[in-house]
C-alpha cells in the first residue's frame, strides 16, 4: 500500500529551486534512502514532508490525506516523525524527561495537565534498554556523549512511534559498531514503521535500504535497488563531476 | 491645512529626538544583543553634564557636545567593563542588570546633585522661528532634525567605512572566527557600548532646552526608544531612522485627530501589531542569523 505519496513537489528560496518537481511514493514498512550530492535537496525534502518548510507547489499525501498545507504539529499527530541532522535533544532535560516528551500519543493540554511529568516513561523502559541508556535515565541530556545523544534521539523517535519516520544522517559521527547497531534497529523498526533516510554512508545504505532515490538539483535522478543505482551512469556523472 | 503641515513638522521634530536617543540603543542592541535599560540614564547623565558645564564653566550646549560625549562614553565604557561584559552569554539578564544600573545612576545623581529640576539655557544662535507660509518652525527644532540626520550619517560612516566598523560587523556575524583572526572582541564591544552611551549623552544634552532636567527624566524615554529600535529592525540604522519618523509622525497626527493620551495608546497598539507581523522589523538585516 502507498503510505506516502509525494507529487510534483516544488519549493523556492529567493529564486533558487531547492526542490523542483519531485514525485515519489513510499510503501508501508519500506526503508527508503535518499542519496545525492550536497545541495541536492534531500534535507529540504524531509523538511517539506514534516512541515518545517512550506512547499510552493505540489502535494504530499499521507495515507490519502493531503498534508502539505498543515502545520507541523498536525502532521506529527497524523504520524510523521523527524530526526534532525544535528542531534536535537533537550539538553536541559534528563534522559527520562526527553523520552516522556517524545511519548506524545496524547498531545493535548488536558491530558498533559492530568499526569505527572514521568508518568508515561515506565512504558518506555524497554526502549532505553534497547539503546543502552537505562543507567543514565536521570542524567541531563546535555551531559551525554555525542554517540549517546544520537541514541537518545533514536530512542525518542521509537517512543514517539510515528508511522513514517524521517531520518537525516542518523549515523553521522558514529563508530562502525554503533552504525551496525543502528542498522539493526532500523530493520526491526521497519516491521511496523516506514522510514525515509538521508544518508551518505554507503555501507549503511546497503544494509538497510529497500529502495533508493538519488536526487540532484532538487529533482529525482534515479530510483531503484542498490545494484541498479550503483550501475547507473547518470548517478556516476552527478557524483564525479558535471 | 495649516494645522496639518505644522503637525507634520512637529512629528518630524519628535522623530529627530527619538532617533537620537534610539540610535545609541540600536547600536548596542544590534551589535551585542544587550537590552540596555540604563540607556535613559545615559541620556540623563548627558543632560546633567551639560548643565554642569554651563553652570560652572559657562560652556554653551553646542560647545559642550564633545565633552558630554566623552564623559558619558567614559561612564558607559566603565559600566561595560565592570558589569555588562560578564553577561553577554545571558542576554535576558542584561535587562535586569542594566535596570539595576539605571537605578544606581539615577540615585547617585540625586544624592550628589539633588532631586530638583535643573535649568539649561538654549543656544542664543538658534533661538527664534523660521516661517514659510503658514508653517512656523522653531529654529532649534530644525537644527535638531538636521543634527540627528548628521549623527545618523556619521554613525553609518563609522560602521561601514572604518576599520572599527568593519571589525564590529565581523564580530556580529561570527565572534569566534573573528577572534581567530585577531580581532579583540572584548575591546570592540567596550568601545561600541561607550559609543552608544556617548550618543545617548549627546541626545540628553540637546533635549535640555526643551525638557526638564531631573534625575528621573530617562525612565520614560527608554521605553519609547526601545520601541523604535524593535520596530526598525535589529541593528539597522536606516530602520531605526524610519521607525522614528513613523512613530513621531503617527504620534503627531493621532494627537491632533484624537488627543494626546488616546493618540499614544493608538500608536502603542500600532506598534504591537507591527511587531507581531514583522517581528524582525521594518528593515531586517540579514547579517545576523
Amino acid at each position, binding site marked *: 500500500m502507498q503510505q506516502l505519496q509525494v507529487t510534483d513537489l516544488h519549493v523556492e528560496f529567493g529564486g533558487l529551486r531547492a526542490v523542483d518537481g519531485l514525485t515519489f511514493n513510499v510503501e508501508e514498512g519500506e526503508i527508503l534512502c535518499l542519496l545525492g550530492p550536497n545541495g541536492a535537496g534531500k534535507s529540504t525534502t524531509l523538511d517539506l514532508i514534516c512541515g518545517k518548510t512550506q512547499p510552493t507547489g505540489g502535494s504530499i499525501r499521507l495515507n490519502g490525506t493531503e498534508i502539505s498545507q498543515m502545520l507541523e504539529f498536525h502532521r506529527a499527530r497524523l504520524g510523521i516523525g523527524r530526526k534532525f541532522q544535528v542531534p536535537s535533544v533537550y539538553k536541559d532535560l534528563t534522559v527520562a524527561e526527553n523520552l*516522556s516528551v517524545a511519548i506524545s500519543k496524547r498531545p493535548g493540554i488536558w491530558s*498533559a495537565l492530568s499526569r505527572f511529568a514521568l508518568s508515561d516513561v515506565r512504558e518506555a523502559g524497554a526502549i532505553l534498554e534497547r539503546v543502552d541508556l537505562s543507567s543514565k535515565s*536521570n542524567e541531563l541530556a546535555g551531559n551525554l556523549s555525542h554517540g549517546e545523544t544520537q541514541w537518545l534521539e533514536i530512542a525518542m523517535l521509537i517512543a514517539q512511534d510515528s508511522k513514517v519516520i524521517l531520518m537525516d544522517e542518523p549515523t553521522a559521527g558514529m563508530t562502525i559498531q554503533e552504525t551496525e547497531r543502528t542498522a539493526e534497529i532500523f530493520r526491526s523498526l521497519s516491521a511496523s514503521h516506514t522510514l525515509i533516510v538521508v544518508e551518505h554512508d554507503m555501507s549503511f545504505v546497503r544494509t538497510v535500504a529497500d529502495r533508493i532515490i538519488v536526487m540532484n538539483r532538487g529533482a529525482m535522478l534515479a530510483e531503484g535497488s542498490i545494484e541498479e543505482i550503483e550501475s547507473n551512469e547518470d548517478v556516476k556523472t552527478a557524483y564525479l563531476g558535471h | 491645512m495649516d494645522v496639518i503641515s505644522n503637525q507634520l513638522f512637529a512629528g518630524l521634530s519628535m522623530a529627530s529626538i527619538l532617533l537620537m536617543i534610539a540610535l545609541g540603543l540600536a547600536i548596542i542592541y544590534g551589535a551585542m544583543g544587550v537590552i540596555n535599560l540604563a540607556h535613559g540614564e545615559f541620556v540623563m547623565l548627558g543632560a546633567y553634564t551639560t548643565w554642569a558645564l554651563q553652570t560652572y564653566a559657562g560652556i554653551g550646549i553646542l560647545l559642550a557636545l564633545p565633552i558630554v560625549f566623552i564623559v558619558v562614553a567614559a561612564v558607559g565604557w566603565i559600566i561595560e567593563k565592570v558589569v555588562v561584559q560578564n553577561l553577554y552569554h*545571558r542576554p535576558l539578564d542584561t535587562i535586569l542588570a542594566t535596570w539595576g544600573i539605571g537605578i544606581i545612576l539615577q*540615585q547617585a545623581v540625586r544624592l550628589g546633585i539633588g532631586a530638583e529640576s535643573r535649568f539649561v539655557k538654549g543656544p542664543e544662535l538658534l533661538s527664534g522661528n523660521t516661517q514659510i507660509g503658514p508653517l512656523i518652525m522653531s529654529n532649534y527644532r530644525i537644527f535638531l532634525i538636521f543634527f540627528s540626520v548628521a549623527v545618523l550619517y556619521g554613525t553609518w560612516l563609522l560602521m561601514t567605512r572604518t576599520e572599527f566598523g568593519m571589525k564590529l560587523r565581523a564580530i556580529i556575524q561570527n565572534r569566534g572566527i573573528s577572534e581567530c583572526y585577531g580581532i579583540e572582541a572584548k575591546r570592540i564591544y567596550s568601545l561600541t557600548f561607550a559609543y552608544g552611551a556617548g550618543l545617548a549623552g549627546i541626545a540628553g544634552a540637546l533635549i535640555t532646552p526643551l525638557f526638564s532636567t531631573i534625575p528621573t527624566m530617562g*525612565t520614560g524615554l527608554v521605553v519609547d526608544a526601545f520601541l523604535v529600535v524593535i520596530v526598525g529592525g535589529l541593528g539597522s540604522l536606516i530602520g531605526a531612522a524610519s521607525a522614528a519618523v513613523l512613530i513621531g509622525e503617527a504620534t503627531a497626527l493621532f494627537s491632533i485627530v484624537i488627543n494626546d493620551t488616546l493618540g*499614544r*495608546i493608538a500608536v502603542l497598539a500600532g506598534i504591537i501589531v507591527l*511587531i507581531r507581523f514583522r517581528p524582525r522589523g521594518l528593515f531586517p538585516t540579514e547579517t545576523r542569523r
Partner: protein
Amino acid sequence: MTSKFHYDLIALVIFAIVIAFGVPALMNYDGFELNTFARYLALAIASMALALSWGTAGLLNLGQAATFGMGSYAMAMHLKLRASDGLPDFMGWNNVSELPLIWVPFESLAFTLLAGLLIPAFIGGLTAVFMFRARIAGVFVAIITLAFLVAFQLLVINQQGMTGGQNGLTGLAQLSLPGWTVDPYSTGFYYLVAGCLTVALAIGVYLTHSKFGLILRAIREDADRTRFFGYNVATYQTAIFCLSAALAGWAGMLYTMVLEFASPTYMGVSFSLAIVIWCAVGGRESVIAAALGAIIVNMLEGRLSDVFVEGWHLMLGVIFVLVVMFMPRGIYGVITETAKRLHHPKRRHRKTDLQSSSTKQLETGQES
C-alpha cells in the same frame, strides 16, 4: 515521581508551616506587622505566577502588572460599590450620572471573585494567542507585553469616569464574606492571604512537575523540536499565560484588600519590572523560590528604607546588579548548586545554561 518533586513538596510544606505558624508567632500576632507581611505574601503570588511563564516556559512577560492590576481593580470595584450607596462618588465628579454597565455585576461578590481570576486570564489569553500564533518569542514577547502594559495603563488612567483615573479607586469598604468582615489588620486576614499563597504554590508545584510543565520546559528549550512531536506549542504557551495571568489577578485582589485602595501604579512599568526582579532574585526555575524572592526583596526594601532613608534605593540597585552578576539562577541556584556539591563533592557539574534557547530566539527573533 522524582526526587526533585519530593524536595519541592518538602519545601512547600516547610514554607507553609513557617508562614502559618512561625511568622505570626515571631510577630506576636501584631496587627501592623501581620498586615505588612500579608502584603509581601500577596506580592509573592504575583512573583510565583511570573515564574510559571518565565521560568518554566521561557516567556518573559513584562506585562504581568497589567493582569495583576485587573484583579486588583475587580476587587476594588466590588468594595467601592459596597462603600457607596448608589453611584460611587468619583463618578459624580466626572459627570457620570449612571453606573456604567461593566460596573453593575461587581455588586455580586461571587462574580467579583470569578472576574478577578477570569478577566486577567482572558486578556492574558488574548495577548498570548495574538503573539504565539505568530510564533513570537524571546525578547519580542517582552517588548510586546511591555507595550501592552503601557497602553493598558494609559487607557485605565484615561477612563477617569470609570476607573478613578490617576488616583485609582479609594475609599473602599472592607470585604464582607458571609459571617466575616475582613479587617486587613486581623490575624484572620493574614491567614487568608497565607492560605491563598500556599494553595497557589501547590498549584504551581504540581504544574511544574506535571507533564504539562515538562512540555513547557521542552518548548522553552526548543519550540520547533517540540512541534515535531505533535504538540501545539502555541496552545501550551497560551495556557500557561492564562494560568499565570489568573494567579496574578488573584494576587491583585488580595493586594487591594491589604492596602485598601487600587491605583494605576499597580499597572506601571516599574512595578512590572519589580516583579521580574523578585522572581530573578528568588530563582525563576522554582515557584517556591520565586515567592521567597518576592518576600525577601520586599522585606529587605522595608528594612533598608527604615535604616537608610536617603540611600536605600541606591543600595537596592547595587544588590540587583550583584545578584544578576553572581547569582544568575537566584537563591534557588545557590541552594541547588550547594546541595549538588554536598552530594557529589568531586564531580564537576555541567553549567546549566538556562538561556541557551532564549539566546537563540533573541538572535533570530522568531523561532523560525
